[in-house]
C-alpha cells in the first residue's frame, strides 16, 4: 500500500464512540493491561497491533465485557460508551453486547442452518415481528457481509459446512444482524487464506459507514490497509495511539518503530 495514500486518509467524523480511562485488567495476580487510555471514534476502523501476549485481545474483550465470563479476571477504570460507563453496576452485560457485537478469531458458527445462525440474534432481541421481517434482516445482513450470493440457495444448509472464509463472513453477518453500534473483531482473518482475507478486509471497510469497528490484528499490513487509527500495545501498555498513517510512517515511540520494522515482536 502506498504510503502517501495512507497519509491522505481523512477521518469522516471526530465523534468519540468509546473512551477508556485508566483501564487496568488483572488475571489473578497477572497485571495484563496497565493504565490504558484510548478514544475510539465513531464510523472509524481502529486497529490494535502488538506482539503476542501484549494485551490487545484482552482490552478488546473488555469493551463488550466478555471478560466477565472469566472468573479470575478483574477490570478497574472506566470504559465509556457514548458517555455511559459500561462497568456501572446498573449495566447488564447482555444489553451491552447487543450494542457491541463481536467476531472471534476462529470462525464459530452455531451448528445450525445458515439462516438460523443469522436469525438467532434478532430473534432473542425481538427485532423482527414476523417471518417476512426476519427474512429481510437475514438477507440484508448476509448481503452486507458479502456472502449472500454464495449461500442464498442453501440457507437451510448447516453453517458449519461452509468453508473457513465463508464461515467467518457468516459470523460477521450474525454479528451485524443485531444492528450493533460497535463491532469488535479479534483477529478475524488469522484462520483465513489470502483471498478470504481480502474479502473480509473489503467488508470491514464497507462496515465503517454504519459501525465503529475495532480490529485486533497480527498483520501490520492488514492494520495499514483497513484502519484509520492504530493503537500499538506492548507488555500491557498502550505505547502509541494515533492516525494509522502516522503510526506506520512516523511513530513517536522507538518501541513502535522497532515493532513495525520487525526488530521486536
Amino acid at each position: 500500500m502506498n504510503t502517501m495514500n495512507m497519509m491522505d486518509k481523512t477521518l469522516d467524523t471526530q465523534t468519540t464512540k468509546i473512551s477508556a480511562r485508566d483501564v487496568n485488567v488483572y488475571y489473578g495476580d497477572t497485571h495484563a493491561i496497565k493504565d490504558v487510555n484510548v478514544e475510539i471514534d465513531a464510523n472509524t476502523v481502529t486497529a490494535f497491533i502488538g506482539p503476542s501476549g501484549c494485551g490487545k485481545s484482552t482490552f478488546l474483550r473488555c469493551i463488550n465485557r466478555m471478560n466477565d465470563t472469566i472468573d479470575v479476571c478483574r477490570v478497574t477504570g472506566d470504559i465509556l460508551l457514548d458517555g455511559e460507563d459500561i462497568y456501572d453496576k446498573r449495566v447488564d452485560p447482555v444489553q451491552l453486547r447487543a450494542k457491541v457485537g463481536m467476531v472471534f478469531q476462529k470462525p464459530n458458527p452455531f451448528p445450525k442452518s445458515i439462516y438460523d445462525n443469522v436469525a438467532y440474534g434478532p430473534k432473542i432481541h425481538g427485532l423482527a415481528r414476523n417471518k417476512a421481517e426476519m427474512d429481510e434482516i437475514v438477507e440484508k445482513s448476509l448481503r452486507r457481509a458479502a456472502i449472500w450470493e454464495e449461500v442464498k440457495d442453501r440457507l437451510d444448509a448447516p453453517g458449519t459446512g461452509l468453508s473457513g472464509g465463508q464461515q467467518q463472513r457468516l459470523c460477521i453477518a450474525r454479528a451485524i444482524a443485531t444492528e450493533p453500534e460497535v463491532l469488535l473483531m479479534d483477529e478475524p482473518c488469522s484462520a483465513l487464506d489470502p483471498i478470504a482475507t481480502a474479502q473480509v478486509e473489503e467488508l470491514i471497510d464497507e462496515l465503517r459507514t454504519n459501525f465503529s469497528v475495532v480490529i485486533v490484528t497480527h498483520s501490520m499490513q492488514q492494520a495499514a490497509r483497513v484502519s484509520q487509527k492504530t493503537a500499538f500495545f506492548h507488555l500491557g501498555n498502550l505505547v502509541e495511539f494515533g492516525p494509522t498513517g502516522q503510526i506506520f510512517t512516523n511513530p513517536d515511540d522507538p518501541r513502535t518503530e522497532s515493532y513495525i520494522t520487525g526488530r521486536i515482536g
Partner: protein
Amino acid sequence: MTDLSPTPDQPAAAKTSLLTLSPRTVKRNSAETRFKAYGIGAIAVGLMMLLVLVATIVGRGTGAFQQTFITVNVELLEAKLDKNGERNIEDIKRVTTFGYAPLLKTAMKNTVSELGIETDLKAKHLAGILSKSAVAQLRAYVLANPDQIGQTVEFRFLAQSRVDGYLKGRVSRESIENDKNISPAQLDLVDALVAAGVIEKTFNLDFILGSDASDQRPEAAGMGVSMLGSLFMMLVVLALALPIGVAASIYLEEFAPKNWITDVIEVNIANLAAVPSIVYGILGLAVFINYMHLPMSAPLVGGLVLTLMTLPTIIISTRASLKAVPPSIRDAALGVGASKMQSVFHHVLPLAAPGILTGTIIGLAQALGETAPLLLIGMVGFIASNAPETIGEGLLSPNSAMPAQIYEWAKRADPAFYERAWGGIIILLVFLVTMNTVAVVLRRRFERRW
C-alpha cells in the same frame, strides 16, 4: 537455527544401510509385537469369558420359557358348583377350591379311561400330576363364565413341576426314589399321556407376564409383576434423577463460581458414585420408611433409593458432556447478546443432549440391575401381588423387582425355581442389552460435529 555441520563432540554416525535393521529398531519392533500379542490375548480371554457366560445363561435359562401343559375335558357338574341351580354368583363363589378338586379327579379318570391307558393309580394320584394351581384356574373360569356350568369344557392345566422336570430331563426315575411328590407309576402315566398327545411342552407366556407363585407351585411362577415393579421404579428414577441431575450439572458447570465450595461439592459427587449401593439401601430404610413412613416394599421407595444411587452417575456424565461443548459456541452466543441462560439452553444443552441421554440410560440400566438396596427396603421375598390397576397403586403397593425376584427364586429349595432364576436373568439381560444399545444408537445418531 539449524546447524547442519556435526558438532565436534558428537562424531558423525557410521554410515548405515536402510536395508538392514539396526539392533534398536529390532528391539522396538519386537516390543511392539509383544504388546499387540498381550492386547489380543486380553481381548480373547474377555471374549471367552463372555461366551461361557452367555452359553451358561442361555443353556440353563431357556427351559423356563417352556412349560408342560395337560389338556383335559372337565365336566362342570351343577350338583357340585351350584346346588340351587339359580346361577347366583354369590352362591357359586361360596364353593372353595376344595369343592373343585373332585371335578379334576373325575376328569383325569375319564381322560385316562377314554384313552385306554392301564394304570393302578387312584383318582387322587391321577390328578396329582396336575399343578396345584389347576383348581384355582378352574374356579376362576367358572366364576367368569357361570353359564358354562353343566357343560364339559376343555382346559389346559399346568403340569406339576416334577412332571415338567421329567419332560425337561431335570427329574429322572432314579432321582424320585425318596420324593413324596411323585411316584414311578405317575411317570408311567405321564409317558402314556405324552404318547397320546395329552401332555405337551409349549412356550409359556405366563413366565414373562405372570406373577410370582408360592413355594408349592414353581410351575406357575412368572416375572411379569416384578417387571412392573421395576418399571415403576424406573419411572420414579427417570422423573427425579434426570431433572435433578441435569439441573445440578448445568448449575455447577455453567453458573456456579469456581471456589472451594464447588470443589468440595465436585469431589463429593465423585465419591458418592463410588458408595456401595447397600449403603443407599440402609439410608432409604432409615429415611424413607422409618422416618417418613412411606410404605414398605413399595416401588416408590425403591425408586427414591435408586434415584439417590443414579444421581452421581447422571451428574458426572452430564457435566462431562457439557464440558465437551467447545467454549467458542458459548462465546458466539454471548457475543450476539444472548444471556447466560439463553446460551446454555439454546446452544450448549442441545449439543450436550446426546451425551446426557446416554449417561441417563446407562444410569437407568445400572439402577435396573441393582439388588442390594432393595433387600433392605423389603422389595424381596415372596410378594403375592397381582398386576396393579393404577399407576398410584403400582407405586405404593408392595412389589418386587426383576433382580430381587431372581435372587428370591435362586434361594428357594425346589430346583424348578432355580431354572426360573436363570430364565429371569435372560429377561433382565434382554432389557439391559436393549437399553445399552439404545444409548449407543442415540449417541451415534445425534452426535454432532462442530
